């Protein structure tokens, strides 16, 4: 079993490299090989659902970056504690999400600080094993004390998601929820929501400045529903009729080998915001971790859910890149980040071959 990842920007191939199948893959296959046949004799939906193959093949893909990125970039609140002053109330009242990032220059590109992304290891169980907790505090309460990092980019930024996931926490009021969404980060929706970007422009280092308000277009939070859960897992077969939504798979046939190709697309807005939150240096394929899912009190079949996903995932394969997949060529002094990727989607094709 071996894998290879192709990354396409529009119709241009920008990377084609082998992946690392991690030990979790073998564990999942061994799980599958040792499911007790006695379960088939129990007339119960939950029990029989354990015998469905969907519990054992790849069900999600996720994106990550280096550990240091989560204490920097748009994950960081400004250290002057100017929250509530620098954020125009009109933006909050209008439901506008807020992204703050240190925009060091007046040019268009942003080079995120991610440190050195973690080296590949077959023992990896998540994309970045080191801490990926954000350092920000809101009213003296550490955001990571409620929402610890999980080793990858999450999907908190959408206003509805942020409000829902913060309900019942110390960050439950609308204003705090938006700030949590801002520092945890995520991906845009495609419904035309505005995102206000604050940064430190050259010459005005003392306080953040509204760099602009833009409406990025993403593929994961589409039409008011998401193919990506709040933890950053893009689910498999979200919509079989729409190849731009979620992770899709097709059989590899005709090139002398047998296998499966997984494909996912990131819209320009997805890359734009991933860039602001530290870029993309890791991607991973995940199967369902049945044991962890059951121990979490969930009953199969495990339906995908954005806010409270019953599926607990196990890393199957991982790919690390030496360059940020969201890197964007400088465009003079124009605000090029507003037209990220020139409208092209980033397509990831991940081929797993079994012979």
């Amino acid at each position, binding site marked *: *079993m*071996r*894998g290879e990842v192709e990354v396409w920007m529009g119709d241009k191939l920008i990377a084609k490299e*082998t*992946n*690392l*199948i991690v*030990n979790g*893959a*073998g*564990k999942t*296959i*061994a799980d*599958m*090989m*040792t*499911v*007790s*046949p*006695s379960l*088939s004799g129990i007339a119960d939906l939950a029990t029989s659902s*354990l*015998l*469905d*193959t*969907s*519990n*054992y*093949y*790849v069900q999600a893909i996720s994106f990550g970056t280096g550990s240091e990125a989560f204490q920097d970039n748009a994950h960081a609140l400004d250290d002057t504690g100017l929250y509530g002053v620098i954020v125009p109330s009109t933006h909050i009242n209008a439901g506008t999400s807020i992204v703050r990032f240190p925009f060091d220059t007046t040019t268009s590109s942003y080079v995120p600080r991610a440190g050195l992304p973690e080296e590949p290891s*077959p*023992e990896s169980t998540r994309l970045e094993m080191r801490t990926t907790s954000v350092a920000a505090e809101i009213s003296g309460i550490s955001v990571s004390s409620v929402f610890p990092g999980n080793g990858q980019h999450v999907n908190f930024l959408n206003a509805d998601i942020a409000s829902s996931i913060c309900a019942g926490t110390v960050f439950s009021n609308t204003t705090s929820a938006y700030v949590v969404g801002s520092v945890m980060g995520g991906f845009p929706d495609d419904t035309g929501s505005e995102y206000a970007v604050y940064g430190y422009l050259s010459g005005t280092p003392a306080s953040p400045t509204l760099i602009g308000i833009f409406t990025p277009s993403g593929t994961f939070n589409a039409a008011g529903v998401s193919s990506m859960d709040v933890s950053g897992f893009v689910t498999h077969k979200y919509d079989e009729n729409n190849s731009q939504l979620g992770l899709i*798979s*097709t*059989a590899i046939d005709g090139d002398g080998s*047998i*296998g*499966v190709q997984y494909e996912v697309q990131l819209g320009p807005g997805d890359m734009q915001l991933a860039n602001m939150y530290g870029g993309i240096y890791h991607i991973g394929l995940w199967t369902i971790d049945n044991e962890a899912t059951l121990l979490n009190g969930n009953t199969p079949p495990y339906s995908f859910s954005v806010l409270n996903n019953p599926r607990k995932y196990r890393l199957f394969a991982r790919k690390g890149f030496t360059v940020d997949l969201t890197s964007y060529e400088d465009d003079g002094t124009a605000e090029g980040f507003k037209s990220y990727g020139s409208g092209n989607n980033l397509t990831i094709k991940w081929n*797993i*071959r*079994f*012979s």
Partner: protein
Amino acid sequence: MNFIEDKGITGHLKISKRYANGEEEVVLDDSNIIVSGMGESLSYLFTASGSEFVLDHQIGRFQVGVSGPPAGGVVSSINQLSGSLTSIDEYGTGSNLLVGLDNQLVNGAAVTDQTFAIIPASKITRIGDSSVRYTLVIDEEACNGLQRAGIDAPISEVGLFTNNPSGAAKVSALLVAYRTFSKIFKTSDFSIIFRWTINF
């Protein structure tokens, strides 16, 4: 720990003769051949193109044969034993083996009415995070007095099969692991125990 980028599935087979007094004689202790059927079987699973029932993807059947090694050599493209036992009677009606007739997938086509022994669930043991041991027992009453063309025929090959990965209406097993070994003329004096470990 495995630092190569490929995830290689490997196997190890230990074959013993076990006599009535409890004495065991090891006749083979070596790696096996994971054949191309393993990839084909996993492909059915991961492309969701085969059976949706996970038990169909499990290794749950085995065959022994009398014509190993195959004429073409022991290679990963082997998709059937070269001389598998041909009837339930040859496996031994008085034995504890559960034997039946099912189809076998060979080069994508179903070969009908092949004889398989079932591996009881109690003989499938998880022995590590990614390792499973299959214990196959040819008891004293099984596979005795085998003959081909009127001549005593020794057991010399064995294969593991996934049950029905393609999800065919009639069970169609697929060879995934294979091994030949020194000839064993089976008698009622001993049983043969195959301790087969697959590392996924």
